[in-house]
Each structure stands twice: as structure tokens, then as C-alpha cells.
């Protein structure tokens, strides 16, 4: 699957942002904002909230661009992490303007559709696909629900109808197996 611009462009753009070049931020926006909105929406389950997350994230990208260090991972990984963190925060403890109940109700609707859709779209030739594919179904699901949908241990346990403690240890074991497989 083609992933848009090569990461190098994003690295360059971040460096330019750090020097105060707003057109560089706009370049990042043009390339990534659409996908970032979708990533955030998978977690917060509402388009307007997702846009808000992305809006705040771009301000953060701008103010923290000078802290990005290429030897600590890709520029894309850094940018996506900012958006993911903001989305998760909104969900977990940040829901200042939207009550927790609100968000939960929204999350019930589409259930795990997003999660499985993402899994099916994952590049089949990728290592991640191979290694996730090698996991037991439940472990794979749990990991995907957490990463893609922002589900908590409790939510995953509820959905998969397994006890919380078991869920935690299965996911933990799944993650270890995944790390080993991808090492």
C-alpha cells in the first residue's frame, strides 16, 4: 500500500517548523491531516471531536517541533503519537466538554467495525501483518481494539466476554509475542 510522502519530507518539514516556517506546517497538514482525522475518529468516534483533536495536535506539533529527534523514530511516528495521545486523553480523562457517557454511547454504535476494517486493510506483506496474524484470535483482537479503537482493558474484557485479569494477561502475552516476532 502506498503511504503518501516519504518520511524524509516530514522530517524536513518538522525541522522547518522548528525554525518558524508556517508553510512547512501547512505541508504536513496537506499531507497528513486527512488520515490523522480518521485515526482520531477511530478513537473518539465523532468527526467534530476528531477534528478538534487534530487541530490541537497541529498546534502542539508546531510548538514542539524543535523537540523531535530523528534518531528516536520516524517523523510520522512522532506526529501520529501526538494525535493518538490527544485522542486517548479526550477519551480517558480529558472529556471536559463532552461527558464520559456521551462518548461511551457513541462508541457503542459502530462497535468493532473500525478495528476489523483496519486489520483487513493492513498491508499483507508487512511484518506487522504476519506477526499479528500469528497470534491467537483473541489476543490479536484485544491488541487491535486497544490500538485502533482506543479501548481500555475493561472495555476489551466486556466486548470479548473474558474476565478483566485474563484480558490483561492475554494482551500482555500477545504484545510480548509480537515484539519477539518483529525483533
Amino acid at each position, binding site marked *: 500500500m502506498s503511504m503518501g510522502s516519504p518520511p524524509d519530507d516530514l522530517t524536513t518539514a518538522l525541522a522547518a517548523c522548528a525554525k518558524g516556517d508556517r508553510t512547512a506546517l501547512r505541508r504536513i497538514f496537506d499531507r497528513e491531516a486527512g488520515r490523522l482525522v480518521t485515526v482520531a475518529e477511530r478513537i473518539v468516534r465523532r468527526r467534530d471531536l476528531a477534528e478538534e483533536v487534530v487541530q*490541537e495536535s497541529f498546534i502542539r506539533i508546531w510548538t514542539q517541533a524543535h523537540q523531535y529527534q530523528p534518531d528516536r523514530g520516524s517523523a510520522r511516528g512522532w506526529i501520529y503519537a501526538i494525535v493518538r495521545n490527544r485522542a486517548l486523553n479526550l477519551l480517558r480523562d480529558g472529556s*471536559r466538554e463532552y461527558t464520559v457517557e456521551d462518548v461511551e454511547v457513541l462508541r457503542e454504535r459502530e462497535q468493532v467495525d473500525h478495528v476489523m476494517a483496519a486489520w483487513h486493510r493492513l*498491508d499483507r506483506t508487512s511484518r506487522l501483518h504476519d506477526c499479528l496474524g500469528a497470534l491467537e484470535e483473541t489476543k490479536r483482537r484485544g491488541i487491535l481494539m486497544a490500538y485502533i479503537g482506543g479501548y481500555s482493558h475493561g472495555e476489551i474484557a466486556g466486548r470479548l466476554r473474558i474476565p478483566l485479569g485474563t484480558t490483561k494477561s492475554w494482551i500482555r502475552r500477545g504484545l*510480548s509475542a509480537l*515484539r519477539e516476532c518483529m525483533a
Partner: protein
Amino acid sequence: MSDERVDGNGRGDIGVVADEYVLGLLDAADMLRIEADLENDPDLKAAIAASRERFLPLDETAEAAIVGDQLWSRIETGLSAQHAGSTGRHKATANDNRRGGWRATALGATAAAVTLAVALTFSLMRTVDPLVVAVLVNEAGDIKAIVEDFGNETAAVRLLADFAVPEGKTIEVWTLPSPERGPVSLGLIDDARSARLDGPALPKPHDSQLYELTLEQTGGSLTGRPTGPILAKGFAKIAR
């Protein structure tokens, strides 16, 4: 790097911790601990970076939504506001990829101030000992208040700084007994003065439980959840 490494903070397997952090599976207290440790722990930082890279292909499966120029305009407006405001603040957090500089700062300050809190506790309530004490700090890490939770539906808040409370507003005290339950109001502080609160029946307060003060409309938040800006927050320590 060995996956089996147990670090000095007793966090266990650093690889697991990094993954759980990236997946958003840690509870609030662990999350804060990780963010506070990040700065001085290159191994942890590297493990988190590696974990992000491992999972990034899943984000890359996302189909790009169509975003209008409106979103960009809002960002630009935000940038200008940012610029007009304090410019030095973000540089001060010499750390990358933090979930919120606010919280890490708060955590550091809290740890440093626990001794102070315990000393103050002694003078506050001589007859009954609180189960936990939380030192609440503002975004800059300045100590603003102390909450003592007695675990018997009463808590005491001591304000250690002046709060500007506009007309029609009040300070509301919150705690987070568990992420499942969500934030619970312990009561309002009228007149922005130290106060004793009679809160709802809650499970016994635990170590690292979150307490915070927010600015709400007079009478308190209507939604039963914090809606206004956070004035100060901090994590409980068990009183010993």
C-alpha cells in the same frame, strides 16, 4: 535491549510497559509515572519509540478523511493565539512526545512537596488522620492546595494560594476513584477558602488517586463532571 529487563523503578518488563503505554492501556497513575521517567530513561524512550514504529502501519491503514480549509484556518488562529501568549512555556519542557507537560511537571512537584504536605497535615487535623494526602499544583508546578481525604465521606481542602474566582463561578473539588467510575465531585469551595467537604460515599481512597480543582459555575458543574478549567491537580499519597 532485553525484553526481560526489570528497571530500577520496579516497572517490570520495559517492553511491555512501552507497548501498553503506546496502546493507551496504562491507568492514569502509571501513565504519569512513565511520562515523568521518560526524561531520564533513554532505554524507556527508545522502547516507546520502537513500539510506535511497530504499530504505525495500523494508522497508515486509515483512509484520509476530506478536510476543509476551515480546519486549517482554526489551526492558524490557534497558532496566532499561541504566539501572542507565553512563548517560553513550551521550550521549558525539554522533553519530547509527552502526553502533557502539565502532568509530568505536576508529578515532579508533587513528589517534592510530599514532605511539606505531611508536615502540614499534622497541624490541620489533629484528631483524625487522613488516609491520603494530595498536593495540588498548577500547570507551572506551583503548589496551590492540599487535599486530605479521610475516607469517611469527608475531605479537607487547604488552599495555599489565592485563586481569582470570577463572579458567578466557584471552585469545585474532584477526585477520580477509578477510571471506570470517572471523576466524582467532593464538593464546592465557596469564597475560595480552605474548607471541609462532605462528599459522597466512595471506595477507600488509594495511593496515586487523582484530585483536582476546577472552576465551575456557582452551584457546581451541571453535568456532574468537571467542565471548567483545571486550577490545580495532584496525586494522593497514603499518609503514614
